[in-house]
């Protein structure tokens, strides 16, 4: 079924389909699909995937019977269970959680940082069936853990979430994606950091082989704000992490980091994109991957420095270890600099595990497999030791041990 027919058939289950403006916008998206030649060479969102499987899909969505927000009794700490992309409304003097509204949708549709031929984002905007908005109120310091649950097989979740950190607020956000069923989640997080706010965002991805996770985020940072995102991808199913960030006011910072652990025939596509639109801002983009068997990965990193963004510091780094001759990792760093007083760098190192290091460790009595595992752990040591949340550190360590147990 083509996109238009699929959309029309399921229109009544799709958010905002009675809103005329949104309807018009969606028609332009349908036109993009119809006119695009799906040129894999020039479209980063199409690398390593068979888009047909994602475009020609059977739409299925179930409204959850129950969702919950629990205040953990610990001060300023909230635990949320998002079911099929939905979340109950909640309000206190620190946070407010509501459904996503037409105006939030419209606000995002005007964004032009994400390319209009990113078909996964376009599918999200077309078939939107879930999502929520969380506002952290001014000057509050909050911790939120969100468990994303999908109830049934064959569901197609198209979810848009808005996170707003008001002036002076601080949010520590942990999102867990651990789904075992055969379904697809296409999620777009729109994140706004107001003046002097801070968001530390951790995404733990550990889905089963039949679950596809497409996650895109767009963050914008105002004066003196900081957005840090750390992605830990242990999924056995397809995962796409595309994360965009705009530093729109002076002295703001963004740090986009990710680690992925692939095996079997799994694929992961990754992209980070930082737009420096104001002076004295800093950005850091670091992705590391470990690939075994026949797994494949891509990582595109981009720093765009606008001509007004003097005194920019922008760093990119991509590193990969290939544990098998059949694994592949394609990495492409890109810098576009239009200002003249900047410090920017990029680097990419991908290769098999260092044989000299293996020999050194084995010559001290360690088995080859133990030496390999110790070198993998050391490759991501910096990322692991920088986790300052003990509970999360334990979770990540357990998942790492599980991944390493399959390394032969």
């Amino acid at each position, binding site marked *: 079924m083509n996109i238009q027919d699929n959309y029309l058939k399921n229109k009544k289950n799709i958010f905002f389909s009675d809103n005329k403006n949104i309807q018009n916008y969606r028609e332009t998206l349908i036109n993009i699909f119809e006119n695009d030649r799906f040129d894999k060479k020039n479209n980063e969102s199409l690398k390593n995937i068979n888009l047909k499987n994602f475009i020609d899909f059977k739409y299925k969505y179930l409204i959850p019977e129950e969702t919950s927000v629990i205040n953990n009794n610990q001060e300023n700490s909230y635990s949320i269970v998002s079911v099929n992309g939905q979340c109950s409304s909640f309000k206190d003097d620190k946070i407010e959680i509501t459904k996503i509204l037409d105006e939030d949708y419209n606000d995002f549709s005007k964004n032009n940082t994400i390319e209009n031929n990113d078909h996964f984002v376009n599918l999200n905007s077309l078939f939107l069936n879930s999502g929520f908005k969380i506002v952290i109120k001014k000057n509050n310091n909050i911790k939120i853990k969100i468990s994303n649950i999908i109830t049934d097989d064959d569901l197609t979740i198209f979810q848009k979430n808005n996170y707003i950190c008001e002036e002076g607020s601080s949010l520590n956000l942990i999102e867990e994606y651990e789904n075992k069923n055969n379904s697809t989640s296409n999620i777009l997080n729109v994140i706004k950091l107001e003046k002097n706010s801070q968001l530390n965002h951790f995404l733990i991805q550990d889905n089963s082989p039949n679950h596809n996770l497409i996650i895109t985020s767009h963050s914008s940072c105002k004066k003196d704000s900081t957005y840090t995102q750390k992605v830990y991808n242990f999924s056995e199913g397809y995962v796409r992490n595309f994360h965009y960030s705009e530093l729109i006011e002076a002295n703001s910072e963004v740090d986009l980091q990710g680690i992925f652990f692939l095996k079997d025939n799994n694929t992961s596509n990754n992209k980070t994109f930082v737009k420096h639109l104001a002076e004295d801002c800093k950005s850091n983009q670091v992705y590391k991957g470990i690939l075994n068997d026949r797994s494949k990965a891509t990582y595109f990193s981009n720093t765009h420095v606008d001509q007004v963004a003097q005194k920019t510091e922008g760093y990119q780094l991509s590193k990969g270890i290939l544990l098998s001759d059949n694994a592949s990792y394609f990495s492409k760093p890109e810098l576009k600099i239009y200002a003249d007083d900047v410090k920017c760098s990029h680097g990419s190192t991908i290769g098999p595990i*260092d044989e*000299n*290091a293996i*020999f*050194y*460790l*084995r*010559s*001290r*009595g*360690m*088995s*080859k497999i*133990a030496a390999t595992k*110790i*070198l993998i*752990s*050391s*490759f*991501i*040591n*910096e990322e692991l030791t920088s986790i300052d949340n003990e509970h999360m550190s334990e979770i990540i360590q357990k998942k790492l041990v599980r991944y390493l147990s399959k390394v032969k």
Partner: protein
Amino acid sequence: MFLEIKNLSVKIENKKILKSLNLNINKGEVHAIMGPNGSGKSTLANVLAGKEDYEILNGKINFKDNDLFDLNIEERAQEGMFLAFQYPVEIPGVNITPFLHSAINSKRKRLNEDEIDNLSFAKLLKSKASDLGINIDMLKRSVNTGFSGGEKKRYEILQMSILNPDLAILDETDSGLDIDALKIVTDGVNKLKTKDNSFLIITHYQKLLDYIKPDYVHVMVNGSIVKSGSCEIAAEIEKDGFQKFQ
């Protein structure tokens, strides 16, 4: 015989490096191999330790009644062979203490001995480090990472003293060491010497042999041992160079 190398020929990437090399080392003996650059000294050390880049064309090596070629790299280490590297590898993110603890326990496991617990190991490490003038803070760092040349060599000797090998091969341990560091390193080696273990010392210069007295000195040229004898050979080399052996 403790180590017996018979008629060993080895090549790498179509280049023959060792040519019908013979060498015997008994328990409690210290042997030194001297030779010019490119004579195959480090190749011999690497082949003994089990590095897999080399192709064995001919020959046999027996070590403590084992056919050495039947043992892989780690089994050789667990059987008591130790190579102090010429260029110790930097391994960022791998902390020295747990790495060495794991190494010693893998050896003890093979010898059916009880594993050494954390506390006993910490004490052992601290005392050996102190003997070698190694600062305790260094033990909190990653393996060889950010170490100076001298620190790396000292750390190799620390590993050697912890693992207490039956046969230690020192591959140009003296290179890059100033006189004070050389004294510390050679003191460490001398302290470790007993009637039950043996040393194979590879070096260019006599200087090292002023501090560690070998029982035998061998001259290696173009992949073969061309002369063996006492310490006097080292003095001869120091005076006249390797030219006359080539």
